[in-house]
């Protein structure tokens, strides 16, 4: 059981992944590991056939706390089926840039998931940045989520979604 419930591509979904601590043994289950482990055990992980995911952490990494660098994922992108972006506080918007880099620069097509302090008013923005899976607090239902996505009807600027943005779409 998880302490969150999951929305993938706008629908509630069963969790099929497990988060693995760095010292926990790898199994055949789809597993989300740390960036450190991904880099340290790159060769061993290559032997494994089960789906692999990684979590990009945004804090707890030292004095100025810049979080992990999304571009360190570049060599591993083809092997990853899921990338979870950690939002340590709703105010910390570093992960929005990470999401866009993954989708637009690395053309990552797997599941891009938001975890951590992920609130109502951020879902739509995250969605526009290419995040398609959300770990929601247990008391939030799908209808609330859908409402939040629909509150702002349009966008002025392109991002990682299909919306071209009014500056580009007008007159087309």
């Amino acid at each position: 059981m998880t302490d969150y419930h999951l929305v993938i591509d706008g629908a509630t979904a069963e969790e099929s992944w497990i988060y693995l601590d760095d010292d926990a043994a790898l199994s055949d289950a789809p597993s989300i590991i740390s960036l450190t482990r991904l880099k340290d055990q790159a060769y061993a992980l290559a032997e494994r056939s089960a789906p692999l995911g990684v979590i990009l952490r945004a804090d707890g990494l030292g004095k100025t706390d810049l979080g992990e660098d999304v571009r360190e994922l570049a060599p591993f992108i083809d092997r990853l089926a899921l990338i979870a972006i950690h939002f340590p506080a709703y105010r910390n918007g570093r992960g929005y840039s990470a999401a866009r880099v993954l989708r637009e620069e690395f053309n990552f097509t797997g599941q891009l998931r938001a975890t951590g302090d992920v609130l109502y008013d951020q879902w739509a923005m995250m969605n526009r940045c290419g995040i398609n899976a959300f770990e929601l607090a247990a008391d939030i239902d799908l209808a609330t989520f859908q409402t939040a996505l629909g509150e702002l009807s349009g966008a002025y600027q392109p991002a990682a979604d299909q919306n071209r943005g009014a500056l580009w779409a007008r007159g087309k």
Partner: protein
Amino acid sequence: MYRYDEFDHKLVADRVNQFRGQVERRVSGALSEDQFKPLRLMNGVYLQLHAYMLRVAIPYGTLRSEQMRMLAHIARKYDRGYGHFTTRQNIQYNWPALDEIPDLLDELACVEMHAIQTSGNCIRNVTSDQYAGAIEGEAEDPRIVSEIIRQWSTFHPEFTYLPRKFKIAVTAHKNDRAAIKLHDIGIVVKQNDAGEIGYEVHVGGGQGRTPFVAKKMTDFVPKAKLLAYLEAVMRVYNMLGRRDNSYKARIKILVHETGEEEMRRMVEEEFAKIDASEMLTVPQEEIDRISAYFAPPAFETLPADSQAFSQAQADDADFARFVRANVVAHKQDGYAIVNISLKPIGGVPGDATDAQMDVIADLAERFSHDEVRVTHEQNLVLPHVKLDDVKTVYDALAAHELATANLGLISDQIACPGLDYCNLANARSIPLAQEISERFSDLDRQYDIGELKIKISGCINACGHHHVGHIGILGVDKKGTEFYQISLGGAADENAAIGQITGRAFTEEDIVDAIETVITTYTDLRADGERFIDTYNRVGMAPFKERLYD
């Protein structure tokens, strides 16, 4: 001026509806103040010392008369009959009731206004030169690119939770009236040798407790590439800006700690990646569509001189003084730019009553091609007045205490709201501005002193721009008593500089005398035609220090 299309209207309407729901949840108690805070801050609603405060965006400081009339109406209906124009070309209302704010926002939306981008750690409302489109010598009307930036940055999904707030200013003139080098990003619209329009981009300026003048990141970004370049700067900042300490979170600290060269390299690298997709290259048709809104108004062909204008100055000494201080040459023969000072002697800098706003709206409609501008020095401008009409405009202004002839003079001060309103302040700013204004109320003396910019902040956050005042005054709190520190030599124009502190701070009783000492030191030392800042730059701090602390 830019007019909303269906898309713009719908976006603002959606936002008001969304906020209405949030306010209802707050009023019913479903949301705590803590949970409500980030939501209200996304909508320009602050909680101040005494009440909620609403900040309304005036993009690049340009208003139509119907918009000014709406601001007057809001002051009357939802506030106590006045509004406060800010150093970011916005207007603040100090006393709205929270449950009425959604209705207030609905009314604003009727005239294409809102409170978006006026608070929170997003890209804030873009500011520009108040003389845009009226002054001779612009590469292009800076409001064109300002509007494009406004749209691109509105609800930008990637940059809504930045490390800190982010301010962009634009000028297209060699004389910088928008203080672009003191912004997170400052843009100079310019023409290259091939005659193409592009942008010089400065990054990392700012005030607050660690002031910096921005560094020039690039000399020329071609017109079509600007948004890609800006997005590159923003992405570097969003990924590497510090979030561990809010005082070190502005981009100026990143530029300072990273170094100008390395910052430039990172921005260039990011720019190349973003630009490769050409996704952010604005289509020419859209640039043309927006540009058309800023085409010059239908000016009449008039002689360069006006007999009526000259005669009125000869007949009326007060009018002649007003012209001398507040009226600026227009690019179009037979027209003038008329500045309206919101710094009456002894008044509150930047405040205007509902009746005054209505008068200004009427004058704009009748005499200024429907336009009013707000300046970052907290004054207003009628940008397109026929010389023949200046006297009529002046008389109407004078009848409503709006004809103070002190633009750019010692009594034309910037002051933050200070301890009278703000919960961050250490000291009062407004009463001090009023005292200085009273002390130097004699206009002849003000003209004799000449151009002088006094800027007053009630705390180190520097909302009153004290770092860049020719004379800056900073309120500090020492064991519960208000003290004032003086700095000299700051400038917010094209020669932007951070002022130097004179020495120990002065008490509330002594500060105005100390300012007087600084002034007499200048008048004693000045060479012919030297402004205060010129004399200071020539003689340096020493003589001032000597006279202040001997």
